[in-house]
């Protein structure tokens, strides 16, 4: 069965510092991995995906994520956090089908 875990309910980081939001997954076969961001009273906004190829994927707003097959992880990173990055972040996994399994979400708070 597919599953995805976001072990941190909330991550606090100072503005200008690097940030990491963690995601681990379990899936049979090759995973398709995604990150989304949700601002208050908005829908989910696609940030980036890993389907195949280079383990480091770059996405919108300066975010990137690294696919680590041995650790079954797909952590979201950004070199320098902005206050405007404060939002709810969701990791999702698919086993190549249309069905996504979403994590429970991690609230990122960037402190000025």
């Amino acid at each position: 069965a597919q599953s995805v875990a976001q072990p941190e309910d909330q991550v606090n980081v100072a503005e200008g510092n690097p940030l990491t939001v963690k995601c681990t997954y379990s899936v049979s076969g090759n995973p398709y991995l995604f990150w989304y961001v949700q601002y208050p009273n908005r829908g989910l906004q696609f940030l980036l995906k890993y389907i195949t190829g280079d383990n480091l994927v770059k996405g919108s707003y300066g975010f990137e994520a690294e696919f680590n097959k041995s650790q079954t992880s797909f952590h979201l990173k950004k070199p320098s956090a902005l206050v405007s990055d404060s939002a709810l972040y969701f990791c999702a996994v698919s086993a190549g089908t249309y069905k996504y399994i979403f994590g429970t979400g991690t609230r990122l708070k960037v402190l000025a």
Partner: protein
Amino acid sequence: SAVISQKPSRDICQRGTSLTIQCQVDSQVTMMFWYRQQPGQSLTLIATANQGSEATYESGFVIDKFPISRPNLTFSTLTVSNMSPEDSSIYLCSAIDTLVQYFGPGTRLTVT
């Protein structure tokens, strides 16, 4: 990437009534989805809507309560029937475009 709009953006309804939520995609897509999300929490898939066939419902969701229409490749509706306060939630539609799910802004439903 697909751009998705939803109507209404929010509504307050009385128990026992029904509400129909509309979802419009700016391009033709094969698969559309309906999710439910409690504020600040993860997403729960209600059903998958394919054009020309009946919607496929997830465990815990039934057609009588959540009838779905998919009359063409750019449009779908979800009806929340015979509402109770437990139906108060955010309802999101999404569509797949080149392996990525894109989301509408959501409909915030409050049932009194």
